[in-house]
Each structure stands twice: as C-alpha cells, then as structure tokens.
C-alpha cells in the first residue's frame, strides 16, 4: 500500500500541490492535477541535483536548502528559481489564518474512497492529528486537522466514495486555535 504526503510548493509566487507517495524504496510524485509525471527521479552530481525524466527529456534540477525555513534554492538551465515548500498541514494552517470561516473543514481534493474515520463528532482534536484516511489510485492519504478544535460533523461514512470538494470532516476551531 502506498503512503502519501502532500506538499504545497510556492514557485515565483504561485502555489502548487505536489503529492509524494512512497512504498518501501519506491517513491512517486504527482504535481497539481497534471497527468504528466516524471517517469523517474534520482539524486545526481553528489546530491547537488535531482534528475527528473519526462519522456525523453531529462530535467536537471539543482537544489539546496535556502536561507529561510522552507526555502529551497533551485537552478534550472542556469536560471535561479525561488521556491518555498511546506507540507499540506502547515499550508492549511497558514491559509486558515487568512480565511477564518470554514477553516476547520477538511475536503476531498481527488476522487477516492473513505477507508477509515479516526474521530467522532464531539471529539476534541489537535492541529496535525490524523482524522480521516481516503484511498485513491491505490494510495492511502491520511488527512489531518488543520486546526485544533471540536469535530462537529462528519458528512461521510467509512466506505463512501467521495469527489473533489466534498466536505469530509468539519471542525470548529478553538478560540485562538
């Protein structure tokens, strides 16, 4: 079973989603909802770069830790690129600071199957706590609470099929959470 984790990557000011899925030694990566994904990726040049192959073209992406937390310095074909990366949880938390209302609602972002509910209505949860597991394309995706608070509604049942945008778990944030 693949275990996956979502990241939000800020590239020159635009935010993108990336999903890293692992199973044992294997790793796969998907970007946004694009069907194009690298056929393989490997660290090269003594860990200074990652090679990603798309069809017959190979992109050599030089990477290193940037100054600020989450910053990753990138160079591609002599061009420097400024990026920031964070996992989905942190991205949601940051977003919720800006969009107070509804910030506790976790929604499905791809079609899938609810395989496990880890919380019940009325239960208190902490930010970062896993609340629901959705399976899609043979990958299990554990979604976590973006805020601390109380679960007030779970509009889906275990085994249910869900579509992008469907609300899965609604959490009422704690004051200051």
């Amino acid at each position, binding site marked *: 079973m693949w275990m996956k*984790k979502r*990241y939000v*990557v800020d*590239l020159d000011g635009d935010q*993108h989603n*990336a*999903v*890293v899925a*692992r199973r*044992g*030694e*294997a*790793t796969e*990566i*998907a*970007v*946004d909802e*694009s069907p*194009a*994904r*690298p056929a393989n*990726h490997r660290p090269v*040049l003594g860990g*200074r*770069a*990652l090679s*990603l192959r*798309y069809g017959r*073209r190979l*992109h050599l*992406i*030089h*990477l*290193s*830790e940037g*100054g600020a937390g*989450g910053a*990753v*310095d*990138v*160079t*591609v*074909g*002599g*061009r*420097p*690129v400024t*990026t920031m*990366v*964070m*996992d989905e949880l942190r991205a949601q938390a940051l977003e919720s600071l800006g969009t107070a209302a509804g910030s506790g609602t976790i929604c499905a972002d791809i079609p899938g199957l609810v395989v496990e509910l880890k919380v019940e209505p009325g239960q208190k949860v902490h930010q970062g706590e896993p609340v629901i597991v959705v399976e899609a394309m043979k990958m299990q995706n554990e979604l976590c609470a973006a805020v601390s608070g109380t679960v007030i509604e779970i509009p889906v049942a275990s085994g249910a099929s869900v579509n992008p945008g469907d609300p899965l778990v609604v959490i009422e944030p704690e004051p200051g959470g």
Partner: protein
Amino acid sequence: MAQKFSKVLVANRGEIAVRIIQGLREMGIASVAVHSDVDRTALHVLMADEAVAIGPAPAAESYLVGERVIEAAKTTGAEAIHPGYGFLSENGPFSRAVEEAGLVFIGPKAETMEVMGDKLSARRRMRAAGVPVVPGTDEAVRDPEVATEIADGIGYPVLLKASAGGGGKGMRIVREAGEMAGALRRTMGEAGASFGDDSIFVEKYVENPKHIEVQVLGDGKGEVIHVFERECSVQRRHQKVIEESPSPSLTPALRERICDAAVQTAKAVDYRGAGTVEFILAPDGEFYFLEMNTRLQVEHPVTEMVTGTDLVRAMVLVAQGDGLCYRQEDLVQRGWSLEFRLYAEDPGKGFTPSIGRIESMTVPLGPGVRLDTGIYEGFDVPIHYDPMLAKLVVWGEDRDQAIARGKRVLREFVLHGPVHNLPFHLWALDQPAFLDGSYTTHFVEEAFDPADWLPALTDEERQAIIAAVALYESERRSGDSTPESTDASVGNWRLNALRAMTGNR
C-alpha cells in the same frame, strides 16, 4: 646571472592569490599566504606552502597593513612579495618599504605608481609623451569662472574629475555653463572628503564611450612590449563585469595605433612588470588615455588565453632580473576570449552585494574553459572584502564560438548560497548590443531591466521544479532524526563525517 626566487609571499586573498600561488608552484617557487582571521581556511591559505595570520577581518587591520606583510615575508624567508591587485598593489610607500626591507616588490617602481596614481600628473606626463589625452586642463581648477572658461573652450558636456579619484568616484558631468559653479563646489567637497585632496580638473565628456585597455610588460630598463588589447565596456556601477579580447571595436589599424600608444605610455615611465593602460574610445574612433593601472589586472586571463602567455610568470621573471620573456614579434592574438566576473550580488536589486555560505558548487568543464576562484563548497563568503567570487573565462576560435561556449559553461556552472550574477551574464549574451559588439559603457544601464530579465520557464520545467522541491522536502524531513528516519527507504543513508562537520557552525 639572475637570482632565482625560492619563496615568494602573496599579499592578497581570493582568486588572485590562488592564481599567483598556482603560477609560483609551476615555476618551482614556494609560496607564502597571508590571511586575516576570518580567512584562515580560505582557498589561498589551503593552497599555499605556508601561511601567516596578519590580523583581524577588516582589511585595514590585516591585508592593508604593510608592516605585517613585510614581517611575514621576513619571518618565512620569502625573497619577494607579489601584491596581486587591490590592497597594497598600487601603494608607493609600501613598495618602498618592501625594498628597504631587502625584499623584492613584484611590480613597478614606486615613482611609477605615484605618477600614475594622480590623474593630473599622469595627464601631464602622457601629454608630454605624445599620448592622446582627453581635451581639458592639466592643472587643478578651483575657480568656477576659470572652469567655465575652459569648458566653453572644450565644448559641453564636460567632466569634472578629482585628480586623486578612481573607481568611478569623484566625477561629475556638467552639461551647461550654468551648472558649473555648483558642480565644482560639490565635486571638490567630495574629493576632499573621500581622497583628502580636492584637486579637480576639467575634461571633455566623451558620450557613448567604449573602454579599451592594453596590457603592457616592461623590464624597467626601457624595454616595453604590449600584449594586445581588452575591451571592458560591460560595466555596472562603474565596475567591469564582462571583458573580452580582442576588442570587437578595433580595426587592425586602430589596434596598432592604440597598442603603440600604450607602449609609449609605459615607456614614458620606464615601466617595470605588468601594467594596463586604459583608454576611452569615442564613437568617432578617436581614443584618449584614461589612466594606467600599475599592477596585474583582474581581467588578465583573457589576454593569457588569446596570446598563450603567462603574465604572472612574466612579472616574476622581470622581478627576478630575467628581463622580458616575450618578444613583441612573437606575440599574436589567436581566437577570442571572454571573462565573466562572478559577483555575489543581486542583479535584480541594483546589483547589491550578497553574502553567505557556498552551499553547493558545480563547476563547468570541457574544452575552452578556465575558472579562477577563491571559493569552495562550505566556504563562508566574508562580508569584509570584494564580492567577486570567481572569474569564468572561455576561449573560442572566434567571437561567435566564445559566446556560444560562454552560454554553455554559464549554464553548467551552478552555485547556491549567496545571490550571484551568473544569470546576468546569460542575459548579457542574448543582447543585440552585446552580440554585435556595439555596446558602450552605458550598455547595462540602457538595456537591463531588473523587472524583466530572467528567461521564462517552460511548463514542463515548472512541473519538474515543483516535483523536485517536494521530493527534496520529503527527503529532508525523513533525513531528520525523527522516528520517520527508521523508514526502510531512508534508514541506510550514509553520512560523510566531514560534510556533517562542515554544516556544523
């Protein structure tokens, strides 16, 4: 006959100290590095046979303290001192002190530096020697009325210049008579404050000039040869960033005239060692003496690439008393060379200097490349010195190949850490004014738009970057000493012990 040096002290740091140490080693001469405290593991120190600490980080307390440098030479038994460029390289009193200490200064005589260090005295000397100088006064001017009279005679615009100035400081353009009084007062004030000398002179301002310079070598006994020209018109903040040799702006006839003028210049001061005569080339093909740099020049590698010479070796041989190692008739230009100065600076933000640790460095290899550098992975670029990190020099059979090769190697050269100007060089190599050789010293200010200079990424490149960054983050997290690191996919990484130490400061 001549006394061979067995050990030479290099009174510099960074790429030029490294290059001189390499040159000395190839001559079988041991090298002594000097260094400030912050530079104790700088590359020039790692490469030298011996190293002597000469003070704290600020240059004024270390690299500029002549007595400490001389003391280090005496302690280590060095017979001579090579000053590189900058620091003590054009300091007459220092070179006298070196000679009084019984050591050899690898450079020109002190008097030469002093004549050339003062723009007015240099002008006078050159005019006397028949070298063309920009129309203007040879005497300091203090009275606005006199200045206006002179300017009226020359024709506007004119340039007010501090005699003791340099590096683009202490200059002001006057476009009409009415501006003269205020401009003169302000320029004198600045010159007095900056250089301790408020002597100002008036010169015709040449519009759209090119900066052409000629490398010369003299034996200090009257013999002088030239090693052809370099063009250095790509400048930002009055500082060169790209140099080339030959110059695309010279016809063979003009080349001969300008090189002859340089030889005349150097002969007029009985020049010893390697020096550079700088000229302004006007759009009408007239050229004028600007100044002479009495030392090894930053951009000397383009000359070496094109002429197959070794200017450091030539300097050392002259200083040893061996005389000139080249004859004028044997020197020819072959192919084309470009130098790209790699500065830690942000082109998109007015070329402001940047600092930081060199996180990662991938150097370009293959045919026609030379990299002179003073940095390495893990090195912390200090804030105390010039932000030049390296010089990337390419050679090609002709200008087109040199440019194409420049593009190739600028893309292969990847540096992470401080913000730097490698992408700026790639930008420059795409500009029509650079490609056709018509660029002047105003090229950067005219053509560079800090808001729109980086090439666009393709969609696939964007995808690949996003994927790579997410993978990097995912690996970085699992590399942490968290429970995750027992994961089978990352549990057996091996860590280079020293790389871990490098990160550990």
